[in-house]
């Protein structure tokens, strides 16, 4: 089969329809693993921020996890705060700068394990912030241990025979908890395992930021992201593994949208 030359742009008349990276990344380079879902989710958030005209009107508050290294490449004002505390830091900043879009970037370990109090109380207060949760059901950064959102049966480095409810307890479905509280405006779960889900997730992130700018309350956009390294599966198998495991406990879609409720 013939192979098309792809080392430089075509000479025949054409339009560029997609760039390597979003404008709000300073470089394409990163050190995350092959097949990791996090860079894709971060790209979506940065694209939405730009689309909504918030590039020079946003601050990111980043937690501790593999995604944290994007503090070096995201071209937005950022701080990498203490593990789990991003919603608290975001609260202080947002209260003093209500005109700025303040968003957190957290993992499941960061949000549902270390920082459960912070996300729930920020929701209870109805803080106008957007929390992005990259859920891979594992502490990726520390090498693949169980978090509060690891699913039943999931093998991790400290649940070698799989997470056993009787011994390790049940996963926390943070989206449902946050949605049940009156302070939340928008709660949804997306995924980056294929192009269709990625497109749908972009729309969810967009709503998550819109509700903040409309001052409706806290938005939580959870995104299922592949962690082949922490799941001990090949990079090419991450997407399927994710939907077979996490996908069953964490169904995709909107869980709550206050705008929809208000219209009804």
């Amino acid at each position, binding site marked *: 089969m013939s192979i098309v030359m792809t080392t430089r742009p075509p000479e025949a008349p054409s339009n560029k329809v997609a760039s390597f990276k979003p404008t709000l990344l*300073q470089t394409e380079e990163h050190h995350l693993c092959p097949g990791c879902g996090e860079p894709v989710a971060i790209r979506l958030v940065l694209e939405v921020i730009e689309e909504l005209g918030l590039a*020079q009107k946003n601050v990111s508050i980043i937690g501790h996890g593999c995604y944290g290294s994007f503090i070096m490449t995201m071209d937005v004002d950022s701080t990498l705060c203490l593990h789990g505390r991003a919603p*608290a830091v975001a609260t*202080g*900043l947002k209260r003093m700068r209500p005109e700025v879009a303040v968003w957190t970037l957290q993992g499941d370990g960061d949000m549902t394990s270390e920082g459960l109090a912070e996300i729930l109380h920020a929701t209870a207060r109805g803080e106008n912030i957007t929390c992005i949760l990259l859920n891979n059901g594992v502490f990726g950064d520390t090498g693949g241990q169980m978090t509060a959102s690891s699913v039943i049966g999931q093998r991790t480095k400290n649940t070698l025979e799989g997470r056993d409810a009787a011994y390790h307890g049940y996963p926390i479905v943070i989206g449902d908890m946050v949605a049940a509280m009156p302070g939340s405006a928008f709660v949804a779960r997306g995924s980056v395992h294929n192009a269709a889900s990625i497109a749908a997730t972009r729309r969810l992130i967009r709503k998550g930021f819109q509700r903040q700018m409309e001052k409706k309350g806290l938005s939580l956009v959870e995104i299922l992201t592949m962690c082949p390294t922490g799941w001990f599966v090949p990079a090419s198998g991450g997407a399927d593994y994710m939907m077979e495991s996490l996908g069953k406990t964490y169904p995709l879609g909107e869980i709550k949208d206050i705008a929809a409720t208000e219209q009804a």
Partner: protein
Amino acid sequence: MTMRLMDGSEAIVEAAIQAGLRFYAGYPMSPATELLEYMAEKLPHHEGVCINAATEIEGINMALGAAAGGFRAASGSCGQGLALMQEAIAEAALNETPIVIFNMARNQQDYFQATRGGGWGDYRTITLAPKDLHEAVEHAQLAFHLADKYRVPVIFMGDNLLARTQMGTTLPQLDLAPLPPKDWQLDGTSGGTGKSRQIWTFGCGKTNDPGPGPSKHWERIAAKFDAIAEVEARYEEGFTDDAETLVVAFGSGGKFVEHVVREMRADGHKVGYFRPVTLWPYPGEALERASQGCKRVLVFELNAGQMIDDVRLNVHDRKLVKAIGGVSFDESGLNLGPLMDATVIRERIELAIHGASK
């Protein structure tokens, strides 16, 4: 401002707001509770915000967020509450976020916590320990100034006496030098410019503007604390020129000791006093000078012996150093105990002198 009678806590809050405090988040704990109550009452009238945090950890992290946004921010509690804040205090030091932490302490047992800290990394916390409400009003202003000047956390160390004593005050304003604008603040406006800002403990910077990286960054922070130690130590002393007995005490204890020493001087005793106003940096050189020629250096503090370490480190002969304080609470366990009393202190000083001369 005209003279007004105020609770200590109220005066401290008023002074802090005058100094530009706009954000406070705290959790109740006696005797720091009134501070939170006054903050909640007053800040909203000054375009400020006070949040009733769910935990001390949440409170101080909120303050870090507000401070990262460029605003003067604080949190507060006392001993155990401060214990919960240690990770964040260290973080503020290492990522250079200026904040003030009010410790309206239950006693004097938080000396190690304030001066040694329980966070991680090579950091120190400037700690101001006012002896009375007049000084507290000054320190409430100075704390924010020093925090911004050096981009460090500053601990204001009070106690239940300061929090709950009433005073008449005009809230005199300190004449502090103007500070440069906060060109590091996260106001959200730099995104997409290629020069976006970053506040990060690891100091790695961004692709377009690489930072020094963790080792060099922390080396620079440590050097900054060394530089602060050179110039920011504050102290007060009296009758040290010819004192045979020097009594060292801090905070309210310093005020009591000063009073007792003046009384004893009037009675002809060769006694002097030395009070560190900053617990860190410790005014070690001044203490070394003050203790020259003394026969004994007595340390009065309401704990089992914490500041005494710093005294031993700094006097010319550590064998001269003797503790005359001790653990002393009232019955509730929340307040300074019966040892914080001029008569008792005098007895202990006299016992140390006469016991030694016998």
